[in-house]
C-alpha cells in the first residue's frame, strides 16, 4: 500500500513533465499549474489527490484490520490469554493505525519531493499569498502539512478501530470504515447540510493550504485537531465499551 501511495506523486510528476506544453492554467487538481515553477508542489498536488480517497482507503484497510484481522487469524484469543489486556491491546492497535497514517502521509511527501526535485526546478518557493520563502522554510512547511494530514486521519482511524471490534471479518470492517469516509465527504459536499459540515471528520481534510500562506494561519489546524480529538474520544469509548466485555469466540 505504501508503494502504491508513493506511485501517486511520481505519476503526477511524470504526467506534468511529459505534457508540459499543453497544461492549461487552472484546470486539474489544486496547485497543478505551479509544479513547473517548483518541484515541491508535486507534494501538495499529490496530497490534494490522495487525501479525499487514497489515504482514507489505506487507513480504512489498516484500521479495519486491527482487531478483526487478529480474530480472523485466531490470534486474538492467544493475545488476550497471553495476557495482553484488552485496553492495552486496543491502545497498541490504535497507535499502530496512527503510525501507519503518519507513515503513509510521509511516503507521499517524500516520494513527491524526490521526484519533484528531479524533474522540476527547486529554489525559492512562491507561496499562495505571493511571498517567496527559502526551500528550507518550504520543506518545514511540507512537514507541517504532513502532520496536518496525519492528524486529519486520526478520527477515521478511531472509527475503523471501533468497527473492527464489531466483527471477525476484517474485510467487513475495512469496507465499513471506507464507507464512513466516503459518506462524510459526500455530506460535506451538500450545501443544504451546512450546519453539519463543522462536525464531519472530513471537513478540514483539504485545509492544509493554510500552511502555504505567510504568515501561517493555525485556525484550520486547531479546529481540525479539536474535531479529530472529539472523534477519537467518542469512538475509542465505543470501541472500549464493545471490546472490554465481548465474548471472544473466534
Amino acid at each position, binding site marked *: 500500500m505504501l508503494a502504491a501511495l508513493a506511485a501517486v506523486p511520481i505519476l503526477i510528476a511524470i504526467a506534468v513533465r511529459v505534457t508540459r506544453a499543453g497544461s492549461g492554467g487552472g484546470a486539474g487538481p489544486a496547485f497543478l499549474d505551479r509544479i513547473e515553477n517548483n518541484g515541491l508542489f508535486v507534494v501538495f498536488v499529490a496530497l490534494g489527490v490522495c487525501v479525499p480517497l487514497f489515504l482514507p482507503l489505506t487507513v480504512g484497510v489498516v484500521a479495519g484490520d486491527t482487531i478483526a484481522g487478529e480474530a480472523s487469524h485466531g*490470534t486474538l484469543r492467544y493475545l488476550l*490469554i497471553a*495476557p495482553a*489486556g484488552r485496553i492495552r491491546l486496543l491502545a497498541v492497535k490504535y497507535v499502530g493505525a496512527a503510525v501507519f497514517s503518519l507513515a503513509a502521509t510521509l511516503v507521499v511527501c517524500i516520494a513527491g519531493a524526490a521526484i519533484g526535485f528531479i524533474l522540476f526546478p527547486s529554489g525559492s518557493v512562491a507561496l499562495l499569498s505571493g511571498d517567496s520563502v527559502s526551500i528550507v522554510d518550504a520543506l518545514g512547511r511540507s512537514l507541517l502539512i504532513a502532520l496536518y494530514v496525519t492528524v486529519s486521519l486520526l478520527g477515521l482511524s478511531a472509527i475503523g478501530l471501533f468497527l473492527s471490534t464489531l466483527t471477525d471479518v476484517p474485510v467487513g470492517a475495512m469496507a465499513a470504515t471506507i464507507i464512513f469516509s466516503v459518506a462524510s465527504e459526500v455530506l460535506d459536499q451538500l450545501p443544504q447540510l451546512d450546519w453539519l459540515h463543522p462536525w464531519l471528520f472530513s471537513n478540514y481534510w483539504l485545509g492544509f493550504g493554510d500552511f502555504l500562506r505567510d504568515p501561517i494561519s493555525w485556525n484550520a489546524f486547531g479546529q481540525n485537531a479539536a474535531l479529530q480529538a472529539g472523534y477519537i474520544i467518542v469512538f475509542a469509548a465505543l470501541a472500549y465499551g464493545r471490546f472490554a466485555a465481548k*465474548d471472544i469466540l473466534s
Partner: protein
Amino acid sequence: MSQAELAIETRGLTKQFGSYAAVKSIDLSVPHGSVFGFLGPNGSGKTTTIRMLLGLASPTSGEARVLGASMPRENATVLPRVGALVEGPGFYPYLSGADNLRRLDSADRYAPSRTRSARVADALERVGLSATAAKKVKAYSLGMKQRLGIANALLTPRELLILDEPTNGLDPQGTREVRTLVRSLALQGTTIFVSSHLLAEIEQICTHAAVMSAGNLVAQGTLDELRQVGRPRVRVSTADVPLATAVLEKFGMTVVPPTGDGDDLVAVLGDASVEPDAIVVALVRARVRVRGFAVETPSLEDRFVSLTGEGFNVDH
C-alpha cells in the same frame, strides 16, 4: 476438598447463547497437581467452558475460579500463570514460527524480554520444532501448527496448562510425544487440564477426568472412581440361552439376552456377594452347556459411551 487445593473450581457455571445453553450449570473441581481429562463428544460444551476459564467469554451465570482467583475479573493476575491451547492453534501465516512466539510473548506484560529468545528456542525444542523455527507458519502442516500452539503454552513456567484437544492433527509419533511431554510437566508439579473427545488418548495420562454431554457435566472424579461406577458383569457363552437365563435370574441378576445369533449372554453381577465361581457351578449343575464364562469390568470407554451416548449425532 478445600479451595486451596483446587486449581480450577466452577460453581453453577452456565453459558447461554441466545436460547441455546452451551454449558449448563457445571461444578468442576480440578485438584492441584492433577492431570485432568475433560471428556465429551464434539459440541458438548468443552471449548465454551475453557473459554470461560480463560476469561475469553463471561459466564451467563455461576462462577469460575482459576488458581484461586475469580475469572474473568482477575484475568491480569491469573493468566500469566496459565498456558493454554484453545480450539486449535492461531498464528500469523506470514511470520516464522519463532517470530510468532516472540510476538505472543511480548504481548505478555509479565514475560521478561531479556530472556525471550532463549525461552522461545527452549519451547520450540520441547515440541521438536527447532529445525523449522525459521520457516513461515503458512508452510507448516496442521500437526506442526499444533506443536507450535503447545510451544506457545510453554513459553514461561506455568502453574496450570489448559490444553484443548492437544493431539488434534498429530501423527501417532506426535501424539506419543505430547503424552510424554504432559507426563514430564505433571512430574514437575504443573496442573494439566486436557480436553479431548478421544478417551483412549486421555486414559493413559490422566489421574482425574470429567465427562461432558450436551452441556452437562455427567461424571467427574479420579479415573478409578469413574471405573468403579460401572458394575462388573458376567458374560456367558452358551447355546442354552433360556436355561442359562433362568439360572442367572435365580441369583437375582438382570440378564441382557443375546442380540444376535451366536452372541453371548450378558448379566450384571449385582451385589458383590455373588461369587462368580458359584455361578459357574450352578450353570453346570443345571446342565447348561457353557462354552465360555467371563467376569468383565466395564472399561472407561464403555462408561464414556454410556454417559455420552453413541453415534454421530451432535446433541443439543
